[in-house]
């Protein structure tokens, strides 16, 4: 195992601080006290920070799993000869879809399914599809033709070719898409608190409502750290499992 560099140490420290704060928030009270006025509580006290963080993480991961399954399946379907007529539209939709702010998707879901977890999950799922779908498309389409030709020529069936060659070679890009999707989802899930989904946005909004900068900063820091650590974790995963794939 390679010795962790500066970045690795920073990551470990960040993770440690985050976990420490979530489990023993009151220990950090003195740090946040200067930000409050008129004796307002320095640490968020209207709910359990750890529970909120886990709830948000859970929401994000659930939606991510669903988006990945659907997006990758659609990506595979659309790049097969039988799905070719859906390909041009798919590409345009991916381009167009990314001009929609995620907040708009969330806002539109509410009148349809009500408040709470449901519209958040729907918004996360729908918006999360795009980066993963786009990267699946690009990954499958940019497989080197010589490699595909060789695979067919050797006697792999279409399914074997997909599983043994196309998907593994597309995997780095797909993982990158999942990474991007996750980061955006953490942000959108935070806003989900405006529609009564359980999450860290609550802390920020409580701070905004009561003019408590300490709350705002706590919520922001935990959310930010969570997003960054998730991003780095997936990056590490990608390097570990896909490091051997290098396409000339």
């Amino acid at each position: 195992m390679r010795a962790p560099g500066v970045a690795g140490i920073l990551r470990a420290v960040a993770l440690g601080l985050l976990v420490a704060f979530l489990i023993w928030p009151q220990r950090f009270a003195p740090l946040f006290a200067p930000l409050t006025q008129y004796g307002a509580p320095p640490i968020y006290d209207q709910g359990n920070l750890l529970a909120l963080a886990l709830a948000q993480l859970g929401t994000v991961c659930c939606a991510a799993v669903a988006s990945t399954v659907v997006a990758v399946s659609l990506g595979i379907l659309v790049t097969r000869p039988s799905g070719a007529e859906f390909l041009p539209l798919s590409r345009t939709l991916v381009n167009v879809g990314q001009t929609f702010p995620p907040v708009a998707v969330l806002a539109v879901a509410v009148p349809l399914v009500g408040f709470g977890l449901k519209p958040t999950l729907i918004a996360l799922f729908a918006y999360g599809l795009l980066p993963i779908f786009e990267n699946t498309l690009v990954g499958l389409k940019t497989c080197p033709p010589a490699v595909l030709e060789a695979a067919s020529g050797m006697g792999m069936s279409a399914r074997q070719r997909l599983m043994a060659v196309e998907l593994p070679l597309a995997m780095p890009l797909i993982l990158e898409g999942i990474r991007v999707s996750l980061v955006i989802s953490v942000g959108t899930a935070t806003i989900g608190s405006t529609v009564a989904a359980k999450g860290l946005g609550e802390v920020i909004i409580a701070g905004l409502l009561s003019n408590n900068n300490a709350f705002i900063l706590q919520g922001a820091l935990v959310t930010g750290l969570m997003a960054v650590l998730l991003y780095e974790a997936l990056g590490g995963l990608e390097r570990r499992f896909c490091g051997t794939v290098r396409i000339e």
Partner: protein
Amino acid sequence: MRVDRLGALLSAAGITALLTLPFVVSKANRIVPGTPLALGDVVPAWAAFACYALLLAVALVALGVANPRLRLVVALAGIVAAALAVAAAGNTLTPPGNKVVRVAPGAAWWMLTVCLGLLATDAITRLRPGPGRRVLLLVAALVVAVLAIAHGTFDHLSIMREYAVNATRFAHEGARHVALAAGSLGAALVAGLPLGILCYRVPRLRAAVLGTLNLIQTIPGIALFGMLMAPLGALAAAVPLAAQLGIRGIGAAPAVVALFLYSLLPIVANTVAGLKRVPRATVDAAQGMGMTSAQVLTRIELPLALPVILTGVRIVLVQNIGMVTVAALIGGGGLGTFVFQGIGQTAIDLVLLGAIPIVVLAFSAAVVLDALAEVMERAPA
């Protein structure tokens, strides 16, 4: 005859929606629950018949005709017909002089418009229009929409009622939204272009700068707003001049700073990438001719890097238009105020009043800048 599978899918979805879901939802006032109504209930019989006939024709074309131009024309005709039908429904259901009744398009209308929109999008994609044509199509669509709205066609629909109530605020917040998005883009260009050029010239800086900017990019929007509020608030408290300039802990200031920071990565990264693409041979020739470093930069390298930089500008503008929406939460203003107000009041019309212009703005910015980048790419260097 080969059946077009996309057409089949969209036709089936559209027709099912039309038959099973409400075309409009009518409410006596803002707060009571609405009554779902079908197309036949809200327009005169001849109009309903004409609509159904047209939609049937669209479905048939979608199923069997391959010619993209024809598909585009019928899809657009279908969208126009649906829009006119829902506008007419508004007129029919609103007694004259009544400003309280709320008529909104129902699920069937949305589904129909989405399916027709997908059909039109597919046809346009197959036609592969060049950059000029794409912009022309966009402008034409916008002009038609604006004219129809200005003419008062949709006045009786609930969304226009909300607009009527909020007209001045809409204009104000809309202008603010654009100003925030464009302003932060401008600031990012002023700071980011030189930074990008520096990173290109000094490769050792690249990893550190891009890594830091990447890190900032990973932090969710609202979190970054939140993180800036405390320092900016402290700044305003400590330095009276800053407060007088309008820098406060809430409002536009944290939003602008955050947007500026977010805009840096695409600008810097794309500047570096664009400059990297300039062929070494071209630069050598220019230097061999006796141009100074600055001349090579301004006359050769930057113009050739322009298409990629413009793509970065597009990314930033679209991203910023979306993020200014969230800035409404911290008092930054913009169209997001309508979105969050609508969420708070469970009024989808308010939400749409904010969301639709945001989407239209972002989409238009993307189309125009992409077209510009493509034109730059093709233009002789």
